[in-house]
């Protein structure tokens, strides 16, 4: 990530596809692992750890969405709903059957994957705009169903309280405990995605994205791969929903409305479509930005708005800034923060002799 190679010396495809392009990359990863695994949890206070925790959850969900939108080229406006499917599945299993997290988590993911495939079926006949509208309908229908069927939503307020997960007999009651729990899943999601994308499946996804009719002609079963992309992507979303549920201690449909689907799309567009590193940048950026906005507006905003208006203004500004950033990135830098990062790197690659 931070190294400067002297040139390209790869002679085999295997070397080109390796996870670590150079030995030094492995060392970077080890340093990052020590930083996130040991140093940060020791020195950071609870509050900052809770922000990191939210980032980890966002990374899982955004990676899932990027597999679908960035790598396979199928748009989905229904990821908020897929998360809610995972969240309510896990919450119901955890409360009614008293199952531990290592059963509810995959169950939530699998349920979301099943629903995701169902919503993705129209993608076989339609694409682009039509698919966006179909997944939008999926989002609205799932939202409505959860809200109106007490058997799923646990009755009043449509929310279910869930106890914090227990690992090896320890209850994860503090943010520091949750930190390691969530870090594990974020790292797992990153590794799985990186490996998935250099496998046969990942290549097929990219082929479908670039030109699906041509992909079919060269022998890729687009029926299978489009549905597979929907399944994998909504599995991630379901897991992300389960993690949110355990993090907040409650499953509530309000956390998974249409606006969440748009937040996640903002993450991958700002970060960079079709890039794992970009997804991480985007998830971090979108998690931190509202906190910064809140900080600024709470100090400056009271000059212009009354106390009671301020809450509305903050949420409104947040939405407007996200929308504005989506537009700006689409027009100015479609490849997102990841591209900016690559530009910085390639500048320093030959620095200080830039020619």
């Amino acid at each position, binding site marked *: 990530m931070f190294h400067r190679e002297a040139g390209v010396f790869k002679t085999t495809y295997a070397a080109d596809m390796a996870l670590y392009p150079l030995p030094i990359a492995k060392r970077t990863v080890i340093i990052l692992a020590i930083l996130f695994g040991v140093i940060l949890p020791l020195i950071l206070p609870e509050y900052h750890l809770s922000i990191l925790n939210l980032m980890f959850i966002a990374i899982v969900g955004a990676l899932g969405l990027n597999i679908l939108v960035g790598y396979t080229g199928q748009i989905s406006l229904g990821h908020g709903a897929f998360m809610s499917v995972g969240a309510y599945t896990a919450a119901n299993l955890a409360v009614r059957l008293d199952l531990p997290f290592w059963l509810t988590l995959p169950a939530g993911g699998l349920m979301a994957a099943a629903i995701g495939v169902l919503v993705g079926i*129209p993608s076989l006949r339609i694409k682009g*705009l039509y698919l966006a509208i179909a997944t939008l*309908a999926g989002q609205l229908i799932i939202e409505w169903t959860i809200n109106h069927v007490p058997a799923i939503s646990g009755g009043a307020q449509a929310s279910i309280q869930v106890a914090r997960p227990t690992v090896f007999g320890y209850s994860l009651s503090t943010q520091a405990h949750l930190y390691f729990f969530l870090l594990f899943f974020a790292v797992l999601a990153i590794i799985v995605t990186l490996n998935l994308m250099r496998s046969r499946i990942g290549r097929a996804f990219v082929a479908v994205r670039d030109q699906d009719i041509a992909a079919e002609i060269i022998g890729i079963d687009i029926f299978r791969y489009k549905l597979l992309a929907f399944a994998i992507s909504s599995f991630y979303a379901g897991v992300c929903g389960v993690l949110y549920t355990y993090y907040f201690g409650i499953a509530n449909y309000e956390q998974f409305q249409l606006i969440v689907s748009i937040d996640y799309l903002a993450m991958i567009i700002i970060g960079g479509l079709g890039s794992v590193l970009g997804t991480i940048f985007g998830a971090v950026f979108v998690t931190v930005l509202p906190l910064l906005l809140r900080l600024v507006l709470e100090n400056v905003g009271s000059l212009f708005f009354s106390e009671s208006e301020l809450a*509305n*203004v903050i949420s*409104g500004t947040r939405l407007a800034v996200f929308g504005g950033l989506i537009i700006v990135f*689409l027009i100015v830098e479609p490849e997102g923060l990841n591209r900016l990062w690559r530009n910085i790197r390639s500048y320093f690659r030959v620095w200080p002799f830039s020619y």
Partner: protein
Amino acid sequence: MSGEDFDFLLALLLNGASIGMMYALIALGFVLVYKATDAINFAQGEFVMMAGLIAAAILGIEGAPLIAAIVAAVAIMIGFGFALERVVLRPLLGRPVVAVIMATIGLAAVLRGLTPVVFGGETRALPLPIGDEPITLGPMSLAPIQVLGMVVTLAFFLGFNWFFKKSRMGVAMRAVADNQQVAQAMGINVQRYFALAWAMAGIVSAAGGIVWGSMLGVDVHLALVGLKVFPVVILGGLDSIGGALVGGLIIGIVESLVAGYVDPYVGGGTKDFVPYVLMILVLMVKPYGIFGKRRIERV
């Protein structure tokens, strides 16, 4: 079927038809843009909300006449349409469909987010001088605003029918929609007609915003009627103006019927749900809608 049941059915049909025509008015803005520029406007509901807000804010000023509010809303929406085309849509020409979709979703977020900052969070009234006395016609009755909505919708559809069939600009616009390169070769300034399409969407949204805002009151939730545009246009066909009217009528009547006959058994709310189910079914069976043009894809 007894007489009372029949009257109930008739009342539901009429009410559904009038709401459906008001949906059609909003859907018209969507179809105009899609037909001419191939761009999908996910912010149509927010356009309507914005127009309603502007009209309500001007009416809120002491002594401002209604006509001033209407003129201002239309003028600002036209300007907004032009500016939007120039700043956001033009740089995205030739980019994947997903990029345009995302840009309009971002635009919707911007408009929805700025509303409470600029106009405050409260619901504003948008009173029109037409009274509240329901207009009765035999066993049926309609609120005057619904009658006005039907009249406005019909006027717009007839107006656009004339525009596209007879006027020079309308014919040029149809040429642009048909084939951009050929239109350009015939000396039509394609960019200008793209901007014109967005401005026309602005005009239609202004009308929609005033009618809907006067019926529901104006606040952020007015944008939610925009979500109903999708079932309407998918049903009617995305690039068909007549389809928007037919789709609107079908969705309005279906909504009204399920609200009347199904809601008492399931506890309400089905009318927010059934249009989308209908839409998914249409997408699976006939993705280009009733009147839409079928596109053939080649590698």
